[in-house]
């Protein structure tokens, strides 16, 4: 706390670009104990499970963080009431991965009005007043990355058959991913020939893929939105004995990356969608409440908006990403 | 063989001694505890106290299986067959012909065929699904099941209630065969005439206590039996009919009414104060005629007219608002909401009248129901009692009370005394007469021909969905009706 005040005054007129408080050591140092409320959607598939586990693990690292977890719902009504509970309890900060960004906006605004900073993770609120900071994965960017990679691989074959296996279609993020994918493909003159949507589950991936493969006897490239359902997708591909195409995954599970590393399946690449967003959210919330800044940034305050990159992982760079990948 | 026990709430000290080869009749009013008694013997209920002796040995019957293993087979009052299974499967239910769980379908069918022939129904295929059978034939399946086991004692709880006179004859023949083989039969019926015919000895139960044990049928007079059952003297005769005024208006008129495939061309007129009876065999279509008049079944031809207005076909509401009331054949499944209090059953057709703007006035409703059930001497006359706890006769009275509260010009009564004891019967007969005298037009359907003849002013004899004759009831007797029916179905 003291550090921040000095930082502010010191930062006034000088060109000093190294705030004293924002060192890694300074940020790790124990501060006042704070209570962070965390609420996320039902951990009903690998990525979300990883999100929650990473958040909890992150909170466990700090003795000065008391995490209140209310994870586990796809019901906006219930999640709103969980946030209300946090407001009632006057927690110090709320990290919220909303089941639907727009639906949770009002209650987040109420929390902000009650003086509780809200960190919005992954699915964005519909109002900028609803969150003090926002950490987003780039869903549209994921689609773009996957599409661009496929364009590169397929080169200049305008008749190439591109198939897409989406996640839960009624989620806005699925729509964004598909939109990005379609955009990138159209830049090289391709389009999605066959599209099915699964439900982010292994079984759903398997079932829809086996149907898709029957419907499309010849495929050149396939993008699967989610590596967790990808296990099922690959099982179906194996069962059908198909290997004429390249497959790109999504989210970036350790499992998928090991396959890419082995380079003996159709799985050639995956697009990372970081599963550490909520953990980052917890960390930001702690810094925010303890009035610290981010290390490696000159800025003395926590930024409003952080959009995480959606890099493509291939056999060339897989070593770099494997350590932070999530186990499904 | 000796069984005696006392106990269950419904049974407070009943003794019953059955000897091999006899037909032992159990008599008692509705709710006296007859069915409860036999269910205790068949292992369906456990007695709270008392002892059962089987061939001199004291035993306990732990469940239905134990009873069956002892050789006690039971035909229950509520039909106890399974619709989805074939006749043979029903007959051998619980003791299937099988090795290692695999059924011997053919041998079961063959054995069932034998038993059915023995019962005089060789024409019924054992492979038929029981759901397709009439109530009478289901009763036969029930009987075949009892015979399929090696039994020493067969208990029959009101087997004749759903049978017509022909079938009853058949039943008696089988009973005689059984007793000749030394098998004992316990026979329960409300029809005293039947008991006179086949019974050897009688046990009378009243209010869960036995009033008389092992009376010889031959030595006991009917009034004596009735006194034992009811504790009072009941004139088991039909109330005298008062002649209808010659100018009494026609209230109900059916013109060439028909339901395709069931009955056709039924024309009848009922005048105010008149009781018309429909006689015929089981399955002749009598219930269907009532249902068609009432709109519960859509007629495909002809018209129903009440007081000069033609009713819309297939509309119960139209019939009810025109002043027709129906007391259906199956009291429990078609008539009453058993878990609701009495008064709500009484006002089921008219509760709208006790409401203002849709809001009910239960106090007035209860009051109106109370008036009627007191007038009908319902026992107990508490409008808040759950209907299920009442005896059959009293439940029947609730149905009559329903239409008394509603107020009807025409009353259709389908089997108004089925399963009702002698005492209550006499009361219901009196009631029907009083209603007629008050100007209600009444149609009565009953499987007991003497009842139709005794109650009605005029009788329509029905066979195979067609009206054979219409006569005044005093111009025809029971053999006459039967004769007509036989000739009608032969033609």
């Amino acid at each position, binding site marked *: 706390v003291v550090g921040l005040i000095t930082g502010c005054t010191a930062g006034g007129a000088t060109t000093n670009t190294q705030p004293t408080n924002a060192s890694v050591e300074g940020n790790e140092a124990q501060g006042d104990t704070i209570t962070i409320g965390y609420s996320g959607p039902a951990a009903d598939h690998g990525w979300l499970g990883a999100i929650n586990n990473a958040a909890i693990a992150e909170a466990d690292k700090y003795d000065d963080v008391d995490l209140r977890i209310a994870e586990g719902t796809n019901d906006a009504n219930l999640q709103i009431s969980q946030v209300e509970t946090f407001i*009632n309890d006057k927690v110090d900060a709320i990290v919220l991965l909303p089941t*639907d960004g727009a639906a949770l906006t009002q209650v987040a605004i109420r929390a902000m009005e009650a003086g509780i900073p809200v960190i919005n993770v992954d699915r964005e609120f519909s109002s900028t007043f609803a969150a003090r900071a926002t950490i987003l994965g780039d869903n549209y960017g994921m689609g773009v990355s996957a599409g661009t990679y496929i364009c590169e691989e397929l080169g200049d074959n305008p008749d190439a058959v591109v198939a897409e296996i989406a996640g839960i279609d009624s989620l806005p993020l699925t729509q964004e991913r598909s939109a990005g994918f379609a955009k990138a493909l159209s830049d090289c003159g391709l389009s999605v020939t066959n599209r099915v949507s699964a439900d982010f589950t292994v079984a759903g991936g398997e079932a829809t893929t086996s149907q898709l493969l029957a419907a499309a006897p010849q495929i050149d490239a396939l993008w699967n939105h989610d590596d967790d359902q990808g296990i099922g997708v690959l099982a179906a591909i194996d069962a059908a004995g198909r290997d004429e195409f390249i497959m790109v995954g999504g989210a970036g599970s350790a499992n998928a990356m090991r396959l890419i590393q082995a380079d003996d399946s159709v799985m050639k690449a995956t697009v990372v969608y970081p599963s550490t967003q909520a953990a980052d959210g917890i960390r930001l919330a702690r810094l925010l409440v303890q009035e610290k800044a981010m290390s490696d940034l000159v800025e003395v305050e926590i930024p409003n908006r952080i959009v995480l990159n959606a890099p493509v992982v291939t056999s060339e760079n897989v070593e770099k990403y494997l350590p932070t990948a999530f186990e499904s | 063989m000796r069984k005696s026990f006392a106990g269950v709430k*419904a049974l407070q000290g009943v003794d019953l001694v059955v000897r091999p080869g006899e037909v032992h009749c159990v008599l008692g009013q509705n709710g006296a505890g007859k069915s409860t008694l036999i269910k205790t013997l068949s292992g369906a209920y456990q007695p709270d106290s008392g002892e059962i002796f089987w061939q001199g040995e004291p035993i306990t019957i732990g469940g239905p299986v134990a009873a069956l293993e002892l050789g006690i087979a039971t035909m229950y009052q509520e039909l106890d067959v399974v619709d989805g299974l074939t006749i043979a499967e029903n007959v051998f239910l619980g003791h299937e012909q099988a090795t290692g769980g695999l059924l011997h379908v053919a041998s079961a069918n063959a054995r069932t065929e034998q038993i059915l022939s023995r019962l005089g129904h060789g024409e019924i295929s054992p492979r038929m699904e029981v759901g397709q059978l009439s109530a009478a034939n289901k009763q036969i399946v029930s009987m075949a099941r009892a015979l399929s086991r090696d039994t020493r004692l067969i208990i029959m709880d009101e087997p004749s209630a759903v049978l017509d006179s022909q079938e009853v004859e058949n039943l008696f023949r089988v009973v005689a065969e059984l007793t000749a083989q030394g098998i004992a039969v316990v026979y329960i019926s409300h029809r005293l005439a039947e008991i006179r015919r086949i019974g050897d000895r009688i046990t009378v139960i009243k209010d869960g206590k036995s009033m008389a044990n092992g009376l010889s049928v031959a030595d006991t007079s009917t009034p004596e039996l009735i006194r034992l059952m009811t504790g009072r003297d009941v004139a088991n005769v039909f109330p005298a009919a008062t002649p209808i005024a010659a100018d009494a208006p026609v209230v109900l008129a059916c013109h060439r009414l028909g339901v395709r495939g069931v009955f056709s061309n039924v024309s009848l007129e009922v005048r105010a104060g008149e009781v018309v009876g429909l006689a015929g065999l089981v399955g002749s279509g009598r219930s269907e005629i009532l249902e068609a008049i009432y709109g*519960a079944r859509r007629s495909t031809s002809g018209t129903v007219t009440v007081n000069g207005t033609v009713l819309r076909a297939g509309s*119960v509401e139209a019939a009810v608002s025109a002043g027709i009331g129906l007391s259906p054949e199956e009291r429990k499944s078609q008539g009453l*909401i*058993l878990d609701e209090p009495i008064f709500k059953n009484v006002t089921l057709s008219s*509760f709208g009248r006790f409401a203002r703007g849709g809001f009910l006035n239960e106090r007035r409703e209860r009051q109106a129901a109370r008036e009627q059930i007191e007038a009908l001497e319902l026992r107990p006359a508490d409008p808040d009692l759950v209907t299920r706890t009442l005896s059959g006769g009293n439940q029947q009275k609730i149905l009559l009370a329903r239409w008394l509260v509603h107020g009807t010009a025409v009353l259709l009564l389908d089997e108004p005394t089925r399963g009702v004891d002698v005492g209550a019967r006499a009361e219901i007969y009196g009631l029907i007469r009083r209603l007629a005298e008050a100007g209600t037009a009444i149609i009565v359907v009953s499987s007991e021909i003497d009842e139709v003849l005794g109650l009605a002013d005029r009788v329509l004899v029905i066979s195979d969905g067609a009206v054979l004759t219409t006569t005044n009831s005093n111009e025809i007797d029971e053999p006459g009706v039967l004769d007509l029916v036989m000739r009608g179905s032969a033609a």
Partner: protein
Amino acid sequence: MSEQITQAAPPIPQAHVSPPGRLKRTLGGSVGRNLGLVIAFALLILVGTLTAGDRFASVDNFVTIIRFASIVGVVCVGMTFVITAGGIDLSVGSVVGLSSVVASLTAVQLASAQSSWLLIVVVALAVGTLAGFVNGVVIAYGGVVAFMATLAMLVGARGLAELISNRSTQIVNNQEFLSFFRADLLGVPILIWIFLIVAVAGWVLLNRTTFGRRTVAVGGNAEASRLAGIKVKRHMVYVYMLSGLTAGIAGVMFLGRTTVGTSTHGTLLELDVIAAVVVGGTLLIGGRGTIVGSVLGILIFSTLTNVFTQNNLSTSVQNVAKGVIIVVAVLLQQRFASRGSRSK
């Protein structure tokens, strides 16, 4: 369905039931029948207070619990009628989603901006009632088993909602609408008022009107009701329309609470609703229903969720506990109900 086993137990003959007095009847009727629930509820509050102390036992927290319960609770009222009438409505969750989607369509929002925010409400209620009407007609006149007809609607209405919304989340812009639903009246949130009004209206309708009497009669014995002159089929259609109407109300409440309409609103709501209603003491075979029980049932479930959240327990643990509690509650419920007066 499924009742068969319970019926297999020999009915207990009660030959000489003495007529209960008026007071005894009322006690036996209302409190007695709900005693199991009240005990369960009290226990849950005790556990909440012991484990989470003041955080749990605060006015704010109770408001949160009830506000959470209010949307599902409204649907429970409609479902109580359907189950009492001997039916079941699996489609309520999907209908909630569908009505929220249709009511928040751009066209509707534009029209409502020009007229009144009530238009949004009217549209949602109309959509819900219409879906209920379709259910009712298919069941009553088509003769399709209620379970299947409403299962079909469950699948179909969700698909329709997705098609109509093009699977996007539709944000409501009408500020009057939003501020109405965000407002408090006498310190109590509007959502809770709506729940209260629907519950009281439902109670009066079920217990004090001819409509309610018919509902119980039809559920108790449809054939006897028909032969007594009640228009059973038409009444069943009304009952399903009522259930659809409450789903429409819940759709509006979702709109007000979340400010968005989406096809995912109300997913799996039907399970919670049916569980609450049956745990509340309404018989699944029909013929007996209690609004008070249903309300208690849903309050128990939402308190349970709150206690678990307060204690940092995951949904997985919560689900296991919920499973156990449903069974225990139904068992308790049966015990006390059969003491209050004979059922079955």
